[in-house]
């Protein structure tokens, strides 16, 4: 029987993924991956490891551990810092998938004699004419194709996604039935290595903050910011400026960062046209099928857990892509990914550079 290594995170999804493979008769081993070294109390690696171990014990399979923190630092975290220094908002979890989980971890598992790996991602795959497609998870609320759009044919076809056909409730019910301690563990949110800690404090530790002015859309100085890197386009909370600068008392939103002058540009009201764009340009394109889809009509997500927005590709070369949306989209942030879909098929994606009208 095929030997499968399951990436056990300590969470409920990967634990259930392992159990589903065992039921299908695969020869399963768990591997716990540690990608971050941290002495602070925030690091949950040890707790996660214990949860993974308990689930593996309940399933009667071995659990091994591997440390990719050096690779993660070099190939994901450095890039993450670089992007923030440039005023962009990177998504390290996407890079972690293509560089660590589905590269280093995959190679490691193959080295250990596994034929394939498996993870607890809510995505599905379909083999069509010798090609593999990445499909959205059936539980659209949990669908994780957004984070896996950077994978290649080889990476996807070397992986099994056992929970892609289930919804979260089914997964939790199964975990409870199997006696996993993590059956009601809350879903991890945010960037994995930051966990529950204060994002600002974390970033300050690595990048010196440069406070500057907050400027309104009509050029008035209306406050101070702590450093451009702490703000994301479309952000409302945490600006530290109340109303009173104009007749309207609408909330303020970040709509631009002037890196050169270290200024944060804000506007009022979430319907403000300055926050909406019809076009965006992106680079570092990955097409899962290795080629550009020959379709006019696509949909795209510019952040996780948003509705797909109808769009078309209006310009494309080797490295850059320009998209036109049918309707303007809210706060497309440089550094985040735009991910393309044809119905339930995830076609791939690219990293947003600018949005414009």
């Amino acid at each position, binding site marked *: 029987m095929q030997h499968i290594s399951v990436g056990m995170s300590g969470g409920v999804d990967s634990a259930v993924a392992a159990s589903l493979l065992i039921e299908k008769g695969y020869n399963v081993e768990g591997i*716990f991956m*540690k990608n971050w070294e941290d002495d602070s109390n925030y690091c949950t*690696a*040890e707790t*996660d*490891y214990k949860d993974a*171990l308990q689930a593996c014990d309940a399933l009667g399979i*071995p*659990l*091994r*551990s*591997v*440390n990719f923190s050096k690779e993660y630092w070099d190939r994901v975290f450095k890039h993450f810092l670089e992007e923030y220094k440039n005023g962009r908002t990177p998504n390290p979890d996407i890079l972690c998938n293509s560089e660590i989980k589905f590269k280093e971890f995959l190679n*490691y598992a193959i*080295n*250990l*004699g596994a034929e394939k790996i498996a993870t607890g991602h809510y995505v599905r795959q379909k083999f069509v004419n010798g090609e593999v497609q990445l499909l959205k998870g059936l539980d659209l609320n949990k669908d994780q194709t957004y984070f896996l759009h950077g994978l290649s044919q080889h990476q996807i076809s070397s992986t099994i996604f056992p929970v892609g056909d289930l919804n979260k409730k089914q997964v939790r019910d199964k975990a409870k039935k199997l006696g996993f301690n993590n059956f009601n563990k809350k879903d991890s949110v945010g960037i994995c290595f930051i966990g529950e800690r204060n994002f600002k404090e974390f970033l300050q530790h690595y990048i010196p903050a440069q406070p500057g002015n907050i400027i309104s859309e009509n050029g008035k100085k209306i406050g101070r910011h702590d450093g451009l890197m702490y703000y994301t386009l479309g952000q409302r909370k945490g600006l530290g400026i109340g109303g009173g600068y104009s007749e309207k008392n609408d909330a303020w939103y970040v709509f631009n960062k002037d890196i050169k002058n270290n200024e944060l540009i804000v506007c009022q009201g979430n319907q403000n046209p300055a926050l909406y764009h019809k076009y965006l340009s992106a680079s570092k394109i990955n097409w899962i099928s290795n080629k550009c889809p020959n379709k006019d009509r696509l949909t795209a997500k510019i952040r996780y857990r948003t509705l797909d927005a109808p769009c078309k590709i209006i310009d494309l070369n080797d490295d850059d892509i320009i998209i036109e949306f049918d309707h303007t989209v809210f706060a497309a942030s440089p550094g985040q990914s735009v991910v393309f879909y044809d119905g339930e098929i995830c076609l791939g994606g690219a990293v947003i550079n600018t949005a414009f009208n």
Partner: protein
Amino acid sequence: MYYFDNSATTPINEKVLNLIIKTQKDIYGNASSIHQLGRKSKSTIEKAREQVANAIGANPDQIIFTSGGTESNNQVLWSRLGKKKNHIISNTIEHPAILKVLEKLSSFGIKHNLVSVDEKGTVSIDEINAAISTNTGLISIMLGNNEVGTIQPIKKISQLCIEKEVLIHTDAVQCLGKIPIDVKDLGVDFLSLSAHKFYGPKGIGVLYIKNKNLVSPFLIGGHQESGLRAGTEDIASIAGLGLAAELVTSKIDDHMTKLNNLENKFKTGLISFFPQAIFNGNPDNKLPGLISVSFPGFRSDILMAKLDRAAIAVSSGSACGSGDIKPSTILAEMGINNETNISTLRFSFGSTNSSKEINVLLNTLQLILN
């Protein structure tokens, strides 16, 4: 299971286990009580103290029982607190139960210097000599290293200590039964031992103290252990420790010969099909049966996983709370490059291993390495 991880811990000796069970059941009095049961407990402890003293050439009143090597080390180091001569000298390849304690003590104003080691893991006496200042109060150097087995020149260091009027501690946790230990011959003031490294129970250890005025209690409370280690004694474990110490040292020549034979058989066999193997440590002065081997071109975590599948237990680097392996700081301090470092496994043999088991180990390794 093929168990070649005896430096991590040893399986308990059958006689020791039986004594522990019997003691736990029958000798339940509090050793501080003066009734018959209390007296029985007290004499059980004192018998063990004598057994340990005999095992290392000490007097019984120089022995106190602790919870293990970690506590023994802590007690010696923390005893510098409040002393005038409070500077400590140690070295870069000590166990965390020394290094982390020194780090902590820095925040209490206790300064230390760590001397380096050479490529075989041996400390330099000249470097220690140069590090001694007028307020140096203690030198702590392990007797035999836990990862590479290198034996340090403690006797020479203790001669230096006498000259310079500095106290000397040695962490000998890896050593009992593997090399003869005589505290007078070594010339040390303090020595740490842990029962589970010589076929005794876990959670119990020894601190040898040449002169009881030289240390303060680390756990404070009742008057047990001459006021140097408070807390009701774990009589069964102490009895087990005493017997284990007696058993492993009374037949130390046999034990050493056995370990040496297993080691030679393993090394010769390994080189025959994997000549590129690198043996780390000091080949001329090492603990028998503890072998650190680098497998150039291989990752130790992969090798370990494959051996584990074949029910063979070895160890690698320093495993942490989440089970993953980091490059060994000890090998790094010895100047071994990162690539070689992460290709290193430690095989540590013990009294329960047989020549046949070494054959299984060699055959499995040959399959994995080809």
